[in-house]
């Protein structure tokens, strides 16, 4: 490492909050020319936010900017758009592809930086009528592909390419920018086959030899150890460790990632449910949920337990409830109480007394412009004819306004929902209180079985505890079986009896919640695809 030259990149005391929710606290990072930094951490640890700050993404500015200082080549910088970051020599390959499907690899590599030739029309009407110089385009694309060291067909259309080659096209595009000094790769190997991933690691090494610094974000920890100079592990918005890669192991990193905080373990009351009968049995389930694909999942849920489903982002844990509830296309068999549940038919699931609290609470979970009363009573009204009064022998049904108000007020009380009254609009509540409404809605259905997906995402610690307690109480008092999906292992360990870890779209293992977090950490990264 060249410690005597000034660092290429230095981030000092970076802080960021989203509307009072602290997501980054005092982050310090340094990176030298040609150095490869491995950045890892669980979902929500703050990696992406940190990279967004560095890359000057709009979302940061729109949410009130950040605190702290970024120095590039010793000079303080602050990018207000990604284009300024690009100008300064920072390139980023995002998780989602940013490619034009109908263009060839070469056209994508030089997108909007195409070499051009003047002609008569462009002299008159301006340079946008310059003709493209196709020879030069191929030349530049070739040079970038050579630099990358992994061969892709430059004249192949993106839509015809295997997914791994798309990823390499993105990398080649960044490399074709001449002033590139720092390249951020956000989980680039997630979509690659093993061979391609190896090739990528080789090309990262060759970039580093050419003096390009790389920030490499990945869940595949062995990759970090094999290619990075140093490892930075983040958790809950803090940097928990910053060590040379040579001095650590996969075990150690996964321990850092999930945290070693076991103090709360004592207060938990984990029940052994091995004697209970199976209430929900899932066999060979696949779900086509974009970004959360589920492959061949078989799982038994025991009556009366709280089963946690954990795993890293994009590994398929969200796909399981969304697939079973019929929100995304799915196949396989699901049986509740021995009776098969038809897939791809949400109404049938609800009729079978399954309920689902979606992770997408603003999109799927709430009627934002309606009152709390409506939000809580609506599904029960629709699905079970509750809160309805029949007149004329069922010909006319009227809402039972009084009943609706009573139940709403009961839940507002029980869940300590902060609002001005049962007639307030759902949109006006804070994230945490909206989440409680979603729960109340599901509780009002009085289901036999409840899926809760990411119930604590984006809400503060106080609200978190309340939501988790409400869930636990609901489970214990009504005997409802709960399956909770969460990216935060610690909260799963707090309230679940057993935890299943999903990795690479499959169940990597099921352990009692009392097992140490390292065990779960290892399962999380075991089959990452």
């Amino acid at each position, binding site marked *: 490492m060249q410690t005597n030259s000034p660092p290429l990149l230095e981030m000092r005391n970076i802080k960021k909050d989203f509307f009072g929710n602290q997501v980054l606290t005092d982050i310090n990072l340094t990176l030298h020319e040609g150095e490869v930094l491995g950045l890892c951490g669980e979902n929500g640890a703050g990696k992406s936010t940190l990279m967004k700050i560095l890359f000057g993404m709009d979302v940061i500015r729109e949410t009130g900017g950040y605190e702290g200082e970024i120095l590039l080549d010793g000079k303080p910088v602050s990018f207000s758009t*990604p*284009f300024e970051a690009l100008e300064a020599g920072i390139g980023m390959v995002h998780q989602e592809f*940013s*490619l*034009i*499907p*109908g*263009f060839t690899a070469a*056209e994508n590599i030089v*997108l*909007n930086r*195409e070499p*051009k030739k003047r002609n008569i*029309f*462009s002299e008159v009407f301006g*340079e*946008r*009528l*310059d*003709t*493209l110089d*196709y020879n030069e385009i191929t030349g530049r694309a070739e040079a970038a592909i050579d630099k990358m060291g992994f061969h892709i067909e430059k004249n192949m259309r993106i839509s015809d390419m295997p997914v791994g080659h798309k990823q390499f096209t993105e990398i080649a595009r960044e490399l074709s920018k001449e002033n590139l000094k720092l390249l951020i790769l956000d989980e680039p190997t997630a979509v690659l086959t093993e061979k391609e991933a190896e090739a990528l690691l080789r090309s990262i090494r060759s970039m580093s030899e050419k003096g390009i610094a790389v920030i490499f974000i990945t869940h595949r920890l062995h990759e970090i150890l094999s290619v990075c100079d140093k490892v930075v592990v983040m958790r809950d918005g803090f940097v928990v460790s910053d060590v040379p890669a040579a001095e650590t192991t996969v075990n150690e990193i996964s321990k850092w990632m999930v945290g070693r905080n076991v103090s709360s373990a004592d207060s938990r009351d984990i029940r052994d449910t091995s004697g209970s009968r199976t209430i929900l049995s899932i066999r*060979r389930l*696949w*779900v*086509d949920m974009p970004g959360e*694909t589920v*492959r*061949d999942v078989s799982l038994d849920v025991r009556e009366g337990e709280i089963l946690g489903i954990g795993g890293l982002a994009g590994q398929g844990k969200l796909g399981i409830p969304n697939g079973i509830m019929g929100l995304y*296309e*799915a*196949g396989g068999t699901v049986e509740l109480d021995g009776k098969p549940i038809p897939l791809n038919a949400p109404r049938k699931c609800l009729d079978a007394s399954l309920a689902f609290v979606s992770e997408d609470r603003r999109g799927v979970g709430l009627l934002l412009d309606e009152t709390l009363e409506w939000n809580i009573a609506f599904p029960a009204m629709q699905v079970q004819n509750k809160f309805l009064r029949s007149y004329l022998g069922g010909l006319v049904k009227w809402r039972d306004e009084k009943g609706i108000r009573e139940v709403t007020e009961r839940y507002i009380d029980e869940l300590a929902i902060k609002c001005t009254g049962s007639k307030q609009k759902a949109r006006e509540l804070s994230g945490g209180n909206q989440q409680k409404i979603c729960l109340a809605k599901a509780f009002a259905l009085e289901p036999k079985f409840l899926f809760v997906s990411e119930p604590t995402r984006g809400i503060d610690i106080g609200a978190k505890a309340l939501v988790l307690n409400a869930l636990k109480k609901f489970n214990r008092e009504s005997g409802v079986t709960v399956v909770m999906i969460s990216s935060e292992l610690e909260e799963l360990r707090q309230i679940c009896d057993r935890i299943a870890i999903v990795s690479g779209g499959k169940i990597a293992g099921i352990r009692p919640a009392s097992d140490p977090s390292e065990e779960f950490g290892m399962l999380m990264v075991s089959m990452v695809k």
Partner: protein
Amino acid sequence: MKNESFGKKILNFIGNNSVPILFVLICVICIPISGFSASYLINEIVTRMGRNIFLILCLLIPIMAGMGLNFGMTLGAMAAELALILVSDWQIWGIPGIVLAMILSIPFSIVLGTFCGKILNMAKGREMITSYIISFFMNGIYQLIVLYMMGPIIPIKHSNVKLPRGYGIRNSVDLIHMRQYLDNLIAVRIGGVKIPVLTFLIIGVLCLFIIWFRKTKLGQDMRAVGQDMNVARDAGINVERTRIISIVMSTVLAGFGMVIYLQNMGNIATYSSHSQIGMFCIAALLVGGASVDRASIGNVFLGVILFHTMFIVAPKAGAMITGDSMIGEYFRVFISYGVITLSLILYETKKRKSKSLVGQQLAQAQKDEEEKA
């Protein structure tokens, strides 16, 4: 095995080109029934090609920019009509009149096109219906200008243009001194078929322009914007501006196209010429095998030939079969709307199919694994 894959290929071909194939079938059945002579048919089709192709070609540019089948061209048609009304009132006839009308339509087209483009930028993904409604709205303004402003505000002198009440424009403006001047300037007769060489030359130049345009920076940007707006924006392309430019180009070209169309017809139906033109051009393009997101020059030519053959043949064939000529008339209107509906439905089904493909692949992969084990 080989035969099977060949059969599959044929099925695929039919699936991908169902609309043009359907029309070929209709034409093949109707031509002998109608009893028209070959030379009459060819003559008619060549005339209509000269009349229409330019107009349809200008639909290609918005499609390239991902704005779908765009009724923005109706605005260009209105611009051309305004220009032609003024030119005929000034009594500038012949080729100079045609050229002047084209030039005069440019500013009108640019204003209307910019307006349309700005609104379509607020309605991304719903361009087709939005542009259709804009064309209705603009039709109202056009009528306001033509009915009430032409006369008192915009001076109109000649009584053969003006309504007898003293202001407003007649239902039909005669272009007798312009009629087919462009078509006849260099016309060649081959075996009784009149070929308007100059018109075809102009169409050829436009085709070459479109091919060349695809290779310019602006063309490349339009294609990028058309395929993925967000990616294009991330790459630094000014998406909104590019889309507006594409609509303005289309409108201006549509203005030229409408002048060509009307000089061939020989009169302007002041209040209706433009209202049907968008629908028929889009129908013709779809008949040629284009879809909402893909269209080529080949589609335009094929579409015009098939659509107009049907147009010429169907009423006569209908009259022959049923003895009622109204039936044929009814059919050609019904079919042109039907084609648009059918192609849009096919386009949606195809999109759905490719979406559920992922699911099938997942199920298949699971099955394969099972068989292995």
